[in-house]
């Protein structure tokens, strides 16, 4: 009995304040979580709209799990881009993988038949300023606009203006450049296959 008394006498303040601080955190979380979620989806929407210019709205079409050879299972949300008249103009999905410094999260946009990539953009990354963070630069990103939606290759040298499966690496940031190519390579084919299985896109292509 005296042990319990001692225990309570020593730790009552800790227990009471844990409850109090927990309550404080719960209030803050409840108050701001909707806003935080809204911010995230807003950012995703802005990036997707920039990648798929014809799209008027986006609709969550599927939630897929992909077994990636580079990382653990990647979970991705597939969004259907819908134009004014209601027809599908393309698809966008998010994907992630390891970069040079930290996880890189990107959103990839493809055309309505999954034949061509229309582009990608970075949702979040923590690459080295001046080097790795140039994966956000037009020099690198423009190389993806219009390439066949299939496996990509990273090359050290070449003409970045040519739109084909060869992506030219950023000088001084080969690892970051490779990371984006790997993320797309590890997700895009599986997304395509799973979309066909679900009959969300035509099987002919």
């Amino acid at each position, binding site marked *: 009995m005296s042990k319990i008394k001692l225990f309570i006498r*020593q*730790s009552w*303040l*800790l227990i009471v*304040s*844990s409850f109090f*601080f927990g309550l*404080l*955190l719960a209030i*803050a*979380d409840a108050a*701001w*979580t909707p*806003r*935080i979620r809204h*911010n*995230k989806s807003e*950012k995703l929407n802005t990036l997707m709209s920039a990648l798929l210019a014809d799209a008027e709205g986006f609709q969550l079409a599927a939630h897929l799990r992909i077994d990636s050879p580079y990382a653990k299972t990647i979970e991705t949300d597939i969004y259907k881009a819908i134009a004014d008249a209601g027809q599908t103009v393309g698809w966008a999905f998010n994907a992630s993988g390891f970069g040079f410094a930290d996880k890189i999260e990107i959103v990839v946009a493809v055309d309505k038949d999954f034949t061509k990539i229309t582009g990608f953009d970075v949702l*979040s990354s*923590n690459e*080295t*300023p*001046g080097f790795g963070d140039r994966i956000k630069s037009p020099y690198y990103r423009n190389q993806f606009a219009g390439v066949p939606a299939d496996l990509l290759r990273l090359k050290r040298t070449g003409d970045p203006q040519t739109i084909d499966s060869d992506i030219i690496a950023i000088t001084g940031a080969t690892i970051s450049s490779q990371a984006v190519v790997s993320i797309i390579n590890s997700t895009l084919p599986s997304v395509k296959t799973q979309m066909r299985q679900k009959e969300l896109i035509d099987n002919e292509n």
Partner: protein
Amino acid sequence: MKTNAQTSVSICKQTLLAGLWRENPVFRLLLGMCPTLAVTAAVKPALTMGLCVIFVLLCSNIVVSLMRHLLKPHLRILMFTLTIATFVTIADLFLQAYFPTMSETLGPYVPLIIVNCIIICRAEACASKNGLAVSIIDALSMGAGFTLALCILASIREILSTGALWEIKIMPDIFTPWTAMRMPVGAFITLGLLLALVNAITVRKPKSAAQ
């Protein structure tokens, strides 16, 4: 009674000035070096970090000062950490909700305020021994000193690395940006030079006073 009031006023005055210069957390005590080096590539993130630290420092000093008579010596660090972690999480959520871009720029450094030595040092050295008023003044003064130091460092780095201050271009077109200043090496060099400058000033002061 009068002398009591006078001493408490002078204590407040001393505490207020301590954080800004005599015991400046960055330049004199060399505390909180992680955010000092990591978020000072530009002024905006540095100022945001400074404001976050002021908020956390103020709240934790108030709470610790209020519960100072109830603290058990061997559980005090646990209580400090619990208090600090709560307010840091609130600050982090607030940034995510209202300044999402800034929250992204600062990345993991906002949650890392939990282990910022300045805050735990002020809880231990000041708030757990002093009353509410002194603790509040101490938090504001230390926080302001930290923010000021961060902003000085960030201004130098931002001007040299981008030719701009607060994202407004101020350097002439012929200026070549020093990209290295944006990277960790720039932070270390700038901080080293600033510390040398502060040391040079403080070493000279007593001499001139003696003469």
